[in-house]
């Protein structure tokens, strides 16, 4: 499902006959027809092609921001779990401070400060969503730090960097992959929410969130497809990413169900 989704957004130009910004004012707000399977929007643009192209943005924001979050989170978690002491103390406090703020409020504030653009959006979501990974990596490192194989590596003269990257990180990878996968789902939702609120990806660039933002204004006029389809796309995408995450968790740790 997820693979199909990625494929169809990548192959978007071959799947739809319409460009996402091609307007046709004579065919505004048309319900789904054979020509436009998901209907058209307020400027007569084909909704299907807008959703396909919007998917590129939404998925790219989700993936890239999660990569940033995982890198930052791993760095913070590894430093704090491996070295302990005052460094751990300071970093844990810092993580707690960041976690005290509602994610969406923090992102909203940062976007208001620097302005809305896709690049900023990726950076901001990445730089606010890392605490989950940091806490996880720290926990894993604390658990592994004093195990025999780590002691052995240290005894034969392994340096800090070598122990962290060759011995500790690979052992923490399982839960990290799970968290990162579920994190992508969260990032896609956050991007959609911010764009829905009108402060994320700015039109005319399509994203699932801002299509919904436009669509809701025509709900009263009866243009149900304009709201139903973009939201359904977000929902099914996030659902399938979460399903993959759950499946990964089950395969890494069969004891933890649900």
């Amino acid at each position, binding site marked *: 499902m997820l693979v199909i989704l990625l494929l169809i957004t990548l192959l978007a130009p071959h799947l739809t006959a319409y460009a996402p910004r091609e307007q046709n004012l004579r065919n505004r707000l048309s319900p789904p027809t054979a020509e436009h399977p998901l209907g058209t929007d307020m400027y007569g643009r084909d909704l299907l092609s807008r959703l396909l192209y919007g998917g590129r943005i939404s998925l790219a924001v989700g993936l890239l921001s999660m990569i940033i979050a995982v890198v930052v989170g791993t760095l913070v978690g590894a430093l704090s779990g491996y070295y302990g002491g005052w460094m751990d103390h300071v970093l844990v406090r810092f993580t*707690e401070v960041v976690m005290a*703020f*509602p*994610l969406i*409020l923090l992102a909203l504030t940062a*976007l208001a400060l620097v302005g809305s653009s896709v690049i900023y959006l990726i950076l901001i979501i990445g730089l606010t969503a890392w605490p989950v990974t940091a806490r996880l990596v720290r926990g894993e490192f604390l658990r592994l730090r004093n195990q025999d194989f780590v002691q052995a590596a240290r005894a034969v003269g392994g340096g800090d960097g070598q122990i962290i990257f060759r011995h500790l990180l690979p052992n923490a990878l399982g839960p990290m992959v799970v968290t990162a996968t579920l994190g992508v789902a969260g990032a896609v939702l956050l991007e959609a929410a911010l764009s829905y609120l009108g*402060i994320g990806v700015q039109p005319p660039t399509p994203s699932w969130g801002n299509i919904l933002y436009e669509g809701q204004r025509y709900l009263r006029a009866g243009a149900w497809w304009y709201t139903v389809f973009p*939201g359904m796309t977000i929902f099914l995408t996030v659902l399938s990413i979460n399903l993959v995450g759950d499946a990964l968790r089950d395969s890494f740790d069969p004891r933890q169900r649900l």
Partner: protein
Amino acid sequence: MTSYVVRRLLSVLPLMLGISLMTFALMHLAPGGPTTVMLDPTMRTEDLERITRIYGLDQSWPTQYTHWLRRVVTGNWGRSFVDGRQVTEKILERLPNTLWLMGLSLLVALLVAVPLGIISAVRQYSITDHMATIVALVGVSLPSFWYGLLLIMVFSLHFNWFPSHGMGTYGVANWIDRLRYLVLPVGVLGLGTLLATFTRHIRASMLDVIGNDYVRTARAKGLGERRVIYGHALRNALMPVVTVFGLTIPALFGGALIVENLFAIPGMGRLALQSALSRDYNTLMAINLVAAGLMVGANVITDILYVLIDPRIRFD
């Protein structure tokens, strides 16, 4: 006990200090500093310098921070850049709406999640259990704004049962009317992600408890299933759930932000978006502080509650 409470309250200080530092840093992260928003293209350089001096922006960071912190602690949070009103006043008039929304949603979520979690744990792999799993999965994947729009489509536009936006008439006169306005927002906030999170936790912790020796003992001495579950297992199962409470507050606030904007409820979340769109930094910073403070407060309360209900825990 008293000493624990005192120590727990004191441990909040460094956290609050960190939160204030982060808020301050955010404000000064803006390219060009906080004055750029107030910039008027027609402004003369002398005026800009004067403003910079009045707001103390020509001083060093640490000096600015201590000045700002002193003002925040003494309750002087500055004025809104947009309408010049006191920020505290703006927030206080909106806070109750947000707290009502959050509180009612928590209540509704718990009312559904507790029985659902218990049943799905007691009858593991039954139809109810599978349904709970689906509810949990759908709940975390459902974009709340879309879910809300669908509810509006069905219940306000099609059936015309509930109003689609607003908060109803102001004042205490008409409670029923106000509740009618809250049905859909609370439905979105309470019966979405929140319900999913609680159901997951209650089910997991109930499954944990059921496997314990004392539950088997209770069964062995011939107690009825009801007494075993509600008398022995439930109280122990709900304890870990209390800790989740404080942790859900930021997410709940974030959810309220979306829901308030969707249903046009004049709460803090709506104020946050309006301030963000009009780059009203003073108000935005204050909302951040209040939101983070709410989370810290909720965590302190849950920690203290936890010690009260679980006599095994002692912090010495």
